[in-house]
């Protein structure tokens, strides 16, 4: 990720949380170093798998807040180009809703101590396909050498986000999509 992009992201993050005291806030912000989101739809007739490593995110360990943003167009690894086209045009409507975001707060107090591993609940709004849903998602957070390693697995119900599947292909797409997030966040160095 380029520096320019990083700075832009920090500003976006700060803007999102309506915070102006940038200097202090920066000290506790972790930005994604590399992050991957992947999903599987295990339907009776077809197993769809795809992923994107363009997931961007930030965690403020002091304020216990977070934001993750994904450009839907970055999903790749479909079984066929046709499947990818259907995914974007018919289901996700990526042209209309280009981004998916999940932002909110972390319930359990984060223990920022080298080598700790803890389970936390991230509570926030999942904005997918233009439909906002409040979700509590469990995540495993490992703090190691100034890095936050986040691992979490959750499901998205297509119905919750008004993702309508034509009856003809209902056997090809599962009503429940399993989503896996693996992210490594690095503390933003002080300027």
């Amino acid at each position, binding site marked *: 990720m380029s520096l320019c992009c990083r700075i832009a992201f920090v500003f976006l993050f700060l803007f999102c949380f309506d915070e102006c005291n940038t200097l202090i806030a920066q000290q506790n912000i972790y930005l994604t170093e590399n992050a991957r989101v992947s999903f599987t739809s295990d339907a009776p007739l077809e197993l769809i798998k795809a992923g994107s490593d363009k997931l961007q995110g930030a965690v403020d360990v002091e304020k216990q807040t977070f934001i993750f943003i994904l450009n839907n167009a970055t999903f790749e690894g479909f079984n066929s180009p046709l499947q990818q086209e259907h995914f974007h045009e018919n289901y996700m409507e990526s042209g209309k809703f280009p981004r998916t975001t999940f932002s909110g*707060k972390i*319930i*359990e*107090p984060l223990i920022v101590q080298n080598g700790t591993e803890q389970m936390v*609940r991230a*509570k926030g709004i999942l904005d997918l396909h233009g439909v906002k849903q409040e979700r*509590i998602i469990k995540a495993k957070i490992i703090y190691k050498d100034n890095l936050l390693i986040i691992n979490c697995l959750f499901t998205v119900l297509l119905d919750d986000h008004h993702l309508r599947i034509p009856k003809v292909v209902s056997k090809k797409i599962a009503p429940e999509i399993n989503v896996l997030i693996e992210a490594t966040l690095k503390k933003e160095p002080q300027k």
Partner: protein
Amino acid sequence: MKSVQSFQLKIATQNLSFRRFLLTLLVLISFQYFVTANELIFRTYEPDYHIEGKKITSANENPQGFLILGTRGGIYLFDGLQYSSLHFPDSLKNHDITNIYCQGNSIWAGLSNGYLIHYEEYKSEPTIIITGNSAITDILTDPEMNLWIATYGEGLFIKQGDGLPQNYSAKDGLPDSFVYTLQIDSSGWVWAGTDAGLVRCRMNENNIEIQVCKNKEMFPDLIIQALVLDQKNQLWIGFNEGGVICYDTQNETIKIVITSESINNGIVSSLLSIEENIWIATNDGSLYCYNQKSGLLENFKASKLNPLPSRMLKLCESNIGGFWVVGDDKVTWSVGSDIEIFSKENGKEIGEVHALLADSKNNLWYCNELGLYCKSMNKSNNTYSKQVFSTKDFNKIFFTCLFEDADGLIWIGTFDRGVIILNPETGSFHFYDEKNGLSNNNVLSIAGKNEEIWLSTFGGVSHARKHSGRIEFEHLNQKTGLGNNYIYQIYIAPDKRAWFATDGTGLSYFENGRFEQLQDSRIVNKAVYSMTQDQSGALWFAVADEGVFRLQGDSLRQFGLADGLGSLSVTSVAISDNFVIVVNNHRIDLIDARTGKVTQTGENIDLHDIKAGLNAITSNGKGNFWIGTQRGYISLKNPSRIAKLKPILNLTAVKVNLQAVSFDKNIVLAYNQNYISFDFTGIWYPRPGDMRFKIKLEGQDLDWFYTRDHSVSYSNLAPGNYTFLLQDASNTDASDEKQISLHFSILKPFWKRWWFITATIVVILLIIKFYFQIRLKKLKHEQQISHEKMEFEYSNLRNQVNPHFLFNSFSTLIALIESDSKNAVSYVEKLSDYFRSILQYRDTELISIFEERQLLENYIFLQQKRYSTGLQLLLNIPAETQNKLIPPMTLQMLAENCLKHNIASKNKPLCIEVFVADNYLVVSNNLQPKNNPEVSTSLGLKNISERYRLFAGKKILIEKTQDKFIVKLPIIQRQ
């Protein structure tokens, strides 16, 4: 399938280290306890077209019993039959309701954008209160009438009186600004559950006091989604993923923990406390009840017909009794756990249950077609029913009755095989039958106390005694004084007397070594199926096809259909505190032993044809009863609470001549306001369609009439006092406190009211009085007139025969005859004219002046013959006056008077002038009185004046000057 869950009981003390020690200890030996899955009585309401697809978000019941539903598309009022929308402020575009709160008649509805709508009453116009812009999650009012508003994102808003809502969020010391729920305790603390734990707040005048609890140290989870305070002011906390705990707010300790696992890791969405029960609803659609007395946690299943919502949002108490489970797609009413139906066991239908026994070790024994089962109701044991015997074990044996003796041995009565005595500890059992001395192998009932056990068989009664492990039977039957050999039930009364309900000879009892029969000729049918005795010593017994009798001393009362019993063929009776449980084929009725009031528990709460077995009832002595039915068994608790289940009746409108009137006060109506209609509702959520009313208008109706309509009209009501009475149809008690009674009176029309009649009589009397007064006056007047007339006639008569006049006339006549015979003839003619006129006018009251003038002229003519030029008459009466009226002889009398009193000679002529002046006819003469005048009687003038007064109502004027005497006569107009 029942799942085995773990339950941890934690007792906390104030000493932290000791508490930790205890906690570890207790967790180590944590109790294993079991969640049973029984059916409750539920009634599910799916949304109709009004709220179809609008997702319910919250609900609460108002005092009228209406369920106020908040949805994503407005507020609705539900009465069990239909949904009607509440008036929504036109200015609001957002209809997304997130919370409904009812306090008294007030309704508050919170919206997703932080607006709050307030209705003084469900019919009234709403007002809007604006808080922040976050969704409102909970609302409550404290005793100082401060309004507390919980929001999702902005913490709390507190509105004091008419002030603006003040905001208190995480910046002000709240652990988090996302608040889910509020509760207020008896000491005025408002407890709030947030995303970061529990906090309590209190308003001290205008300052808020915020105390955050030791959430991380004490509670299993931070996210608190549900709170409820129980009767003991303990706070029950429901967590997102930490189950439920009971928190002692006084000592700040945790008393009871219901782990997340024991509620199947459900997210607690709502808690409700009803007496000793804590109800728990989870997001995944499971309903649990924790009983604080028994310590049992139960999970309840709903039937396919009346499912529970799949996403439970809220639990709220119902004013008819029971409670609501509010889900986003439907709402379900439940009677609660006082009536539980057990129809399946381990997934299999139980079928007909013949006999039940709740033993001293908290086990429930029951037998059906398949065998004998034992089910432990201790939380420390498995709640699976264990089959003790299968009927196949003993060649299709039929179990008839169960009994536990003082040693804890279970006696099992059978048909054809005598009695089995089972040791539940070891599982060893032994058959006792005729060979052992039992009177017969068919056992119907077993009862006893201590070492004395009675068995009723087809062959009479066996009295069993235990002697050092051995059992001896003594055979008693009709020959030994027992009324009948066929005994349906043996009942050991609280005073240890053994009673026998016989088939044919009524009740018998055993005393001093012999049987006595209770004879009462009033009971025709002597087949008694079941009996019991209440605390006051009264006997209650069920007689075949005659209902239930209550006998105390000599007073006997029969309860039948008219008293509200469901059927006359009662199969068993039992006593629970003050209630007699009466089981019949159709349903279970409860009779209040003190008042005799019957409460029906049957179709009205969806408990259909239960077809209970004869005396298939047992009690654990703690108020819990089990009743065997054709499809499993029913558990019955708290009859007093069940008896309180009553429809709520509301009078919604009273219309007089089609105009709605206020009915807060007594209504007084005019005589023509006699067309009255009453609109009412009856809230009965178990079966709203079957709600029937009983109506009576006291003063008009002689008897109750029954209707399903929600309105009734009365027309042409006669004046009088009326009382409108409304009850639900199942009510058999006239003096019910839940009935509606409204007094009103129609006044009599004013002409029938006492004041009018009195006034009329007075007026009539006055009229009569006046009439008589006038009449009397008239009579007097007439009398006076006739008197005057008489006097006048008398004087006239006197004039007629005035000898002087006649003598003088004759003298003049003689003179004339000699001197002027021609004039003599005309003189006689004038004289005769004069007398004719007198005669003619004698009876007339008034004559014309013209006639009077002629009379006067005649008179003067006659006198002029005598006085010659000594008498002069100057008449000057205008023609228009000539036809006016005058009493007859007036002028003649005045002229006569003049002659009488004055000198008339040639030297001194008497001149009489008659003329009209100022509406008066004036008669004047020059005054030259005689030297020796004739004695005056003054009768002439007096007579004239009286006649004027009487006939014309006018006065004559008499003036006397130095040289003239003037009489002024008013001219009388013709009428």
